[in-house]
């Protein structure tokens, strides 16, 4: 008993120091991230109350609850905050409406989970199915856009004429709203017999080639004058200068462009599904949700698209880290 006060604190210090070290390690990374997410979710839940209050009270009244004031007509004269203040006990109903204006986070999560895991992947209700339809067009468009972007950048770096004639058009192409030009591209391609995945991929490529052009022109030009002089002293050809210096020097720029490009590709593929009344794809899912007032479905499709984009960007990041490390350029 006499040595307990001595040993206990020392053991306690050891443990707490370890716990503190772990907490510090976590605190630097996970802690703030979790805190930010928690705050956003809390704001979201809070926002559901005023957004859904009218609907919530209507449902409650139909179910026999006492609502003040009585009757939808009377309530329409009042603001959301006043209605919330008058019926505090009925408010939690705002988080479980069947057709909410703003669905609660858990409703979206359930719909997302159901869409991803609860359906056969060939079902029209499966988000995996719709995501794949969009993803296939995204990847095709991304490949076309990246290839085209790199080719244009090679041309621009090597030819002054090409720089002056192509670059302005590339910039102009990005100032046109994609939502305006997408239907025209689809109609034009349809009239020459092209349909299916290709028109979507073209719109996807239209958005993704630009960051690749800009990034790769910068990357190909990143070697300084001394590096170019060195190769001149070896009497290197233009092709050798490109292959030995410009191309490897541009790789870090390429990956930055690809990350922007792949996200733009996904946006392009989704936008391409909107004006055509497409039957499948995340865009079609968004459109159907808005036709039928299925806000939960819209939000679930939005989150599916966001997760898909995050996955694609993360995948490119992995390839980047692996490749640059192999080339000795990973820090």
């Amino acid at each position, binding site marked *: 008993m006499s040595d307990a006060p001595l040993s206990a604190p020392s053991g306690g210090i050891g443990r707490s120091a370890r716990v503190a070290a772990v907490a510090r390690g976590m605190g630097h990374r996970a802690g703030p991230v979790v805190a930010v997410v928690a705050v956003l979710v809390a704001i979201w839940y809070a926002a559901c109350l005023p957004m859904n209050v009218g609907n919530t009270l209507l449902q409650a009244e139909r179910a026999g609850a006492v609502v003040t004031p009585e009757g939808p007509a009377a309530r329409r004269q009042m603001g959301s905050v006043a209605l919330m203040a008058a019926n505090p006990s009925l408010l939690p109903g705002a988080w479980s409406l069947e057709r909410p204006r703003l669905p609660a986070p858990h409703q979206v999560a359930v719909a997302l989970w159901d869409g991803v895991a609860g359906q056969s992947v060939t079902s029209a209700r499966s988000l995996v199915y719709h995501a794949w339809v969009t993803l296939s067009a995204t990847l095709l468009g991304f490949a076309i856009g990246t290839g085209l972007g790199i080719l244009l950048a090679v041309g621009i770096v090597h030819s002054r004429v090409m720089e002056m004639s192509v670059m302005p058009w590339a910039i102009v192409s990005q100032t046109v709203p994609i939502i305006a030009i997408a239907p025209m591209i689809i109609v034009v391609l349809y009239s020459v017999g092209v349909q299916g995945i290709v028109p979507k991929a073209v719109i996807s490529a239209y958005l993704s080639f630009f960051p690749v052009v800009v990034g790769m022109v910068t990357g190909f030009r990143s070697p300084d004058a*001394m590096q170019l*002089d060195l190769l001149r*002293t070896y009497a290197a050809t233009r092709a050798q200068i490109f292959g*030995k*210096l410009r191309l*490897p020097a541009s790789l870090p720029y390429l990956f930055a462009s690809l990350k922007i490009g792949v996200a733009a590709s996904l946006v392009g593929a989704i936008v391409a599904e909107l004006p055509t009344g497409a039957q499948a794809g995340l865009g079609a899912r968004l459109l159907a949700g808005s036709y039928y007032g299925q806000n939960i479905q819209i939000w679930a499709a939005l989150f599916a698209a966001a997760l898909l984009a995050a996955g694609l960007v993360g995948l490119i990041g992995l390839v980047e880290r692996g490749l640059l490390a192999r080339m*000795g*350029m990973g820090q």
Partner: protein
Amino acid sequence: MSAPVVRAEGLDLTFATGDGSVHALSDVSLDIGRGEFVSFIGPSGCGKTTFLRCVAGLETPTGGTLEVNGMSPDAARQARAYGYVFQAAGLYPWRTIAGNVALPLEIMGFAKADRRQRVEEALALVDLGGFAGKFPWQLSGGMQQRASIARALAFDADILLMDEPFGALDEIVRDRLNEELLALWARTGKTMLFVTHSIPEAVYLSTKIVVMSPRPGRISDVIESPLPAERPLDIRDSAEFIAVAHRVREGLRAGMEAL
């Protein structure tokens, strides 16, 4: 004496810039014999780097004649007459040291087996034999500059053009590299053209010191060094050394006063 390796006769170079023209080289005449170690020293703007770039065919003189190995600088470059070492090592971060030294060999189309042997020999010449597989960022600044010298030596050109190669290094590293450079020169018998702004470096290394002055860039003195071929570092405390250094300093001052 055999035909000069570099022969400049009344060389002139004027750059056209946004705000008027710059007279970078004015009436520069100079002969450099085989196996000489020639330093170019002078304040910035005196045209020492420009002259080196003209020899390499990186700048085109606007007047006079310049021959390298009896050819035009452009033809000499095509014939791989020289290796060029810049102020910064400029190693490719994505290539190992061996890969960097092999770069000129790849561009010039040497066979793979030949390449490997030449890389090994060039790295041995600069004492970097054990670092072939390392990446540049794993080496100190002095070692990187040695690797860049190995790169210039790899294809065995007769002439080595060096543009302030040790300018960015600290005094201690620079002393050691100077000593190693002299040993390398003695072993290979190459003709060295060496640009510097350090008087001790120029006097210590050279058989001939070309003092230049600015606006317009011109030669104000050419000093044949009386120092022996064998030069330990402490030769810098000898009376002969100090006398040569004094003459270089006088030449630099005269060039500035003439302005």
